[in-house]
């Protein structure tokens, strides 16, 4: 192939543009597969804890705001549309439209992160933190607008049982508190180990949030290249691949939303 026929974006070890495109696609799907397995580990942890301690999940999810979660879902879905449309625009050489759609996608991502920030801030304020840091306060907890009545918390600070855990063990002096507490027994008893829910919540939404940020950086980079006119019907693969990553981020949220916010 003479140099004149050699398109600038065709790398030297590929014979044709189509081979390069197919190879790139295959590569990005393999990468997405690794992301599925990465988040999959967290979904596994979720499944295990929810199956073994359903009462924790049913109780604790009331601390999450369904409206904010739902809004975030809608934002991400719309940003997926703008991203997919952006890919289409790059394929058709519609440069101005491409730039507009990428900007809209970025705004969607920013909106998502903004709402996430609000949610996290609320959790922090109320002491609803993961694991050992879980120390719920009751000020303003009604602002979370729970659907069902939740237990009135007995004052601030570490509101857990005053009996140290090891005393409940087999050699201990106290019979183990029943972990299989159901809300059907009455809404006033908080199950033990509620912090597990928040550990899982923060791990899953946190890792997801990091991926949203990385996605936004990638989209920003594509935006800059679009402004410079790098993309057109002959070469649009970076837009396509960043788009696929963004859709994956959306996909994960499609599962996170019902599993964390809509339990029970």
């Amino acid at each position: 192939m003479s140099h004149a026929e050699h398109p600038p974006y065709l790398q030297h070890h590929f014979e044709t543009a189509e081979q390069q495109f197919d190879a790139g696609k295959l590569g990005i799907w393999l990468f997405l597969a690794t992301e599925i397995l990465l988040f999959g580990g967290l979904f596994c942890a979720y499944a295990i804890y929810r199956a073994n301690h359903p009462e924790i999940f049913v109780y604790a999810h009331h601390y999450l705001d369904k409206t904010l979660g739902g809004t975030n879902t809608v934002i991400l879905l719309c940003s997926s549309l703008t991203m997919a449309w952006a890919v289409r625009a790059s394929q058709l050489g519609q440069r101005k439209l491409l730039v507009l759609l990428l900007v809209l996608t970025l705004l969607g991502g920013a909106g998502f992160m903004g709402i996430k920030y609000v949610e996290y801030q609320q959790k922090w304020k109320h002491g609803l933190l993961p694991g050992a840091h879980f120390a719920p306060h009751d000020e303003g907890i009604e602002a979370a607008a729970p659907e069902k009545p939740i237990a009135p918390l007995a004052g601030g600070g570490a509101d857990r049982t005053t009996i140290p855990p090891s005393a409940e063990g087999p050699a201990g002096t106290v019979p183990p508190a029943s972990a299989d507490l159901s809300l059907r027994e009455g809404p006033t008893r908080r199950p033990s180990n509620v912090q597990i829910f928040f550990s899982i919540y923060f791990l899953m939404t946190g890792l997801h949030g990091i991926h949203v940020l990385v996605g936004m950086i990638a989209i920003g980079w594509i935006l800059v290249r679009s402004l410079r006119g790098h993309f057109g019907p002959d070469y649009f693969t970076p837009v396509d691949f960043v788009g696929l990553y963004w859709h994956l981020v959306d996909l994960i949220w499609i599962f996170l939303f019902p599993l964390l916010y809509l339990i029970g």
Partner: protein
Amino acid sequence: MGTAEGTATGARVSPRLGDNYLTHTRGFASWALTLDHKRIGVMYLVAILTAFLLGGVAALLVRTELIARGPTIMGADAYNKMFTLHGAAMVFLFIIPGIPAALGNFVLPLMLGAKDVAFPRLNLMSFWLWVVGALFAIGAVVAGGVDTGWTFYTPYSTTTNTNVIATTFGAFILGFSSIFTGMNFIVTIHKLRPVGMTWFKMPLFLWSLYGTAMIQVLATPVLAITLLLLIAERALKVGIFDPALGGDPVLYQHFFWFYSHPAVYIMILPAMGIISEVISVHARKHIFGYRFIALSSIAIAVLGFLVWGHHMFVSGQSGMANAIFSVLTFSVAIPSAIKVFNWLATLYKGDIRLSTAMIYGLMFLVTFGIGGLTGLHLGALAVDVHLHDTYFVVAHFHYVMFGGTVVALLAGLHHWWPKMFGVMFDERLGRIAAALIFVGFNTTFFTQFVMGSHGMPRRYYDYVPQFDLYHQISTIGSYVMAAGFFLIAYYLILSLVRGKRAPMNPWGGNSLEWHTPSPPPHDNFSETPVAEDPYDYGKLVYDPAKGGFASRSYEGAGAS
């Protein structure tokens, strides 16, 4: 038919090897920023061999400590850190990247008649990620080490004061290096095969690399999330593995072994691929049962995902899971056995040349055979209850990892050394080193089968007098092995300086890497070669003048 041995007093290598990938460009940046898979392979080779040296020294220190009861050269805490360093360096820095990164990167595109892998920049990133991960690991060692064992089991890993986060973060980064290599290889094999090379006409090394890459892509992310969870547990106290916070330490083991069991197939599959090549070429006989070997690579990759619980038989795992995993563990031995039988059938009535590469190939059959069979002992649930966490386990995995992967790596290194560096090494010294390694290795580790079955626990700093003699024998064996390795280093480095010039095809292989000069030019092939049956040696004739083989259809295109 003559042999292709070089002599120690052969012609000197001329300072200019002609234009090839080594001399094509010069300067640090031309290597550090190279996109040439061959250079990346060479850099990886240096890297993993350095890691092997680090892990090997740690091993010698461990064995030296164990030569006598009580403190010998270090205290108990230092001992814990030393075997952790040995395990972590060997597993994450050496053996997982190992053959795919060092030999695979070099050979895979050549075998495909391609100019490079599918994603050369990603390949370079894989290498630098390895370096960054290695720096974290070294940093952790320098800062005082880790004493949890390379498996980082909770609850100890979440409560110990040593540098768990630095080490696990290094392993996390190394995981991405591995994932990117896997992605690259899968796409390269799918998309860059030449005209005429259908799937069942590929060399078997490529099938094994494909199976390995499948595992790298699917399993390593689970390691990534496991390590992230461990870091979160330590740094943020999320409590996911801590019973006092409602967590579950056995869950850590499920997460860890879901990756780490398939990981051992990442270690062994490429090794098996090398053996298929070496045995066939050095016995000058078409590989027997090509399809069986090819498909068994994929079978091992798939079945390897179904057996992780056999590491957890005594951890608190339920009886039902124990039984299921035990049964499935027996199944994963079958494809490996299929390969061994096919290799033996390949050797039968072959024209076997005892080159160094072939000696390691034959050694593999013995040592991997023992290793694999003892895996069945451990897979048997009731037997494992007694053998778990004893030296029997240690001996088993050293027989498969060392007697399997390292021996195959040595076979591959000696097989492709002339191609990679354009020089022949001293075969006589090669055979002596192989003998040292074989004797040293079996002395070290066969003893451990015996003492393990007598109850000697693993990772123990001290032991009771009944095990004195075993430990002494085992330690002496390790010194013999070390001598073998130093000898290998000596004659290989010597060959780079004074080795005889290598012909294009010293061993008479027919896969495409042997149809380009040694060392290959920057672009691999002057024109894209036509793929033939890689195991058909009918057209290759030994030419004593060249000291190598020439294919009748490529006559006249020999080494300069």
